[in-house]
């Protein structure tokens, strides 16, 4: 079975995020005064094959620990859903 895994990498709360501060200042300048906290992170989307959601989740967590995030500064969150095949449906050849 194929799953779509969405991994969101964010800076740990204790790590200062100058990008987030700059984005917040920009939003305030545009009049979005209601914004109090902005953190900028990364989004990684993957198609992953596996037997079950739990086994795929374990594998993706392993990928996060080994490569996708730096444990010194980053946290991660994994979202999984069954993959949807978006390739075009083959049409019958013209007779």
């Amino acid at each position, binding site marked *: 079975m194929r799953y779509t895994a969405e991994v969101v990498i964010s*800076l740990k709360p*204790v*790590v*200062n995020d*100058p*990008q987030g501060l*700059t984005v917040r200042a920009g939003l305030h300048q545009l009049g979005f005064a209601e914004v109090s906290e902005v953190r900028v992170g990364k989004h990684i989307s993957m198609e992953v094959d596996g037997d079950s959601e739990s086994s795929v989740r374990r594998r993706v967590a392993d990928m996060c620990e080994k*490569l*996708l995030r*730096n444990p*010194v*500064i980053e946290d991660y969150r994994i979202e999984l859903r069954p993959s949807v095949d978006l390739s075009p449906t083959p049409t019958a050849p013209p007779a």
Partner: protein
Amino acid sequence: MRFGIAVFPGTWSDGDCARAVEVLGHQSVRLWHRDGDLQGSDCVILPGGFAYGDHLRTGAVARFAPLMDSVQEFAAAGGLVLGICNGFQILCEAHLLPGALTRNASLEFRCETTWLRVETVDTPFTRDCERDGVLAIPVSHGEGRFVADPSTLDRLEAEHRVAFRYVARDGSAVGEASPNGSMRDIAGIVSEGRNVLGMMPHPERAAEPLLGSDDGMHIFRSVVEAVAKRTAFTVAP
């Protein structure tokens, strides 16, 4: 002696490092990232650049290069490893040094002369320096803000493993003038065994008076002395 200079796809300072070694009258050899052979190097330099395009994070992919397995073994056996700029980032990702290097607080790529106070001369990389002396060595990076948790920082300080700190020209605390906003103005640190140094500034770009400063040569000269005297550490075969 022989300096091995690592070359990853995207490394750009290997030529300058080779030149610095040559100025001192020593030999250098390029170490290709796909090879595990350190070719009898007495010291391995991981130079600056953008190894593997710095994709994902700086140094994150370079860490898995076959060459890095040999560098890990070399360092574990006490061999001298000098990581400059991108090399420092790779050493942190490879867990040869603690902490991480993140986007400069200014969000700018900074390319300018910085002044570094030598915080310890008790390393193979700074033995030729004066304690509290100030070196003029340029930086050239967008992600050099050193961060680590407070206990790691305290430990680095307690063990005298902060090699260099950004300071003002006269040696006083730099405050807001730090080029990248590093915690405690840290510019370079050594490993627990003191045989691995990571630093963001480029000593190879301060290698001859013609370049505006030859202060960087203290670091290369220190390595040469340390290897010659084989003191306080064991060089890997």
